[in-house]
């Protein structure tokens, strides 16, 4: 949503880039030879893990986009509780009203990882864009610098504040 706050600059952006993959676009597989990927969210389950490895392999500049991708953020709140196995057992089986079972549908419900991890704990990240969400001016500043080529420099409250 914050991305959409870029408003009319999106038109400017569209002149320079081609959108090749997005959760909103109907593209099933992550393509090869991607220049820039804005990765939202932490790595929480087996699907995330598979995808992020694929993204890393096929992308030149990987941006951890938002606090969840950079720190794990709210999505990592489960980590202090330990690995999810016992929790799922409690929730789906022990506390179930009747004949509970842990959802097990390979290919449909991905298995949870032991811990929710920030993206850089799994694959190398080229740029960090913190914020929950990263405000539009911050996204624009980062993308403008990337489009301009050369080293990207983000500093100061407006650019790197968490939360």
């Amino acid at each position: 949503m914050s991305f959409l706050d870029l408003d009319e600059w999106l038109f400017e952006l569209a002149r320079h880039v081609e959108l090749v993959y997005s959760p909103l676009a109907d593209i099933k597989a992550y393509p090869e030879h991607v220049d820039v990927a804005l990765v939202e969210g932490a790595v929480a389950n087996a699907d995330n893990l598979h995808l992020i490895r694929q993204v890393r392999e096929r992308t030149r500049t990987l941006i951890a986009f938002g606090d969840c991708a950079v720190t794990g953020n709210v999505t990592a709140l489960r980590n202090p509780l330990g690995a999810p196995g016992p929790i799922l057992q409690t929730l789906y089986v022990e506390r179930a009203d009747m004949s509970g079972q842990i959802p097990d549908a390979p290919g449909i419900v991905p298995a949870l990882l032991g811990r929710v991890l920030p993206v850089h704990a799994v694959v190398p990240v080229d740029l960090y864009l913190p914020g929950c969400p990263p405000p539009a001016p911050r996204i624009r500043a980062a993308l403008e610098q990337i489009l301009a080529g050369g080293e990207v420099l983000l500093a100061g409250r407006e650019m790197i504040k968490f939360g």
Partner: protein
Amino acid sequence: MAARTFTINDQLVSGREGETILEAARENGIYIPTLCHLDGVTSVGACRMCLVEIEGSRTLRPACVTQVVEGMVVHTDTERLRNYRRIIIELLFAERNHICAVCVANGHCELQNLAIAIGMDHVRFDYAFPVCEVDISHGRFGIDHNRCVLCTRCVRVCDEVEGVHTWDIAGRGADARVITDMRQPWGESTSCTSCGKCLLACPTGAIFRRGATVSEMERDPTKIAFIVAARDQRW
């Protein structure tokens, strides 16, 4: 009181005898990051954010407790210091569960401010994700240990300014926690006067006003120094 002339970052500055490097630097408009330091209470030199290089000194020295010496040459912003300060801040973020997005102090947090000042855009260390308690047994205040950085500002302000010593530290190392009285719930503390000075002193969202939600804990820790100064003049 004799004056002391010395150098900070190639700038010639003057300070008073007995003054700390931190005080002299601030008077001369030179920023040195601090976290455990709080005007009005004793300095403990614990957070190590204010470490500076002094030419001829083998070790880095905390500016908050090191007195100025005539002719000393101080550097407060070298590559090495910037690197170490960033590691310190990262270690703090990795040590407990600091989630700015849902924190009462978001936008008004000294830890967050330091992270920005130091240029921390991510934490390079693995997060520890410890289990920490939240104590909301007190009628007006709460403490969330997930956000505590163990600066002991609450401990010192309670002891030295309010004169009560409700707060202290229990346990050691990574297991250390600030506690009220003999580690009973804050609400059951018999010594706490509910003065709220710990609330003023806390640099993060650890100690908060009950009912406050995200970003609502804005406070002015300089009031502590004001209280101390006012009292000193009166008595």
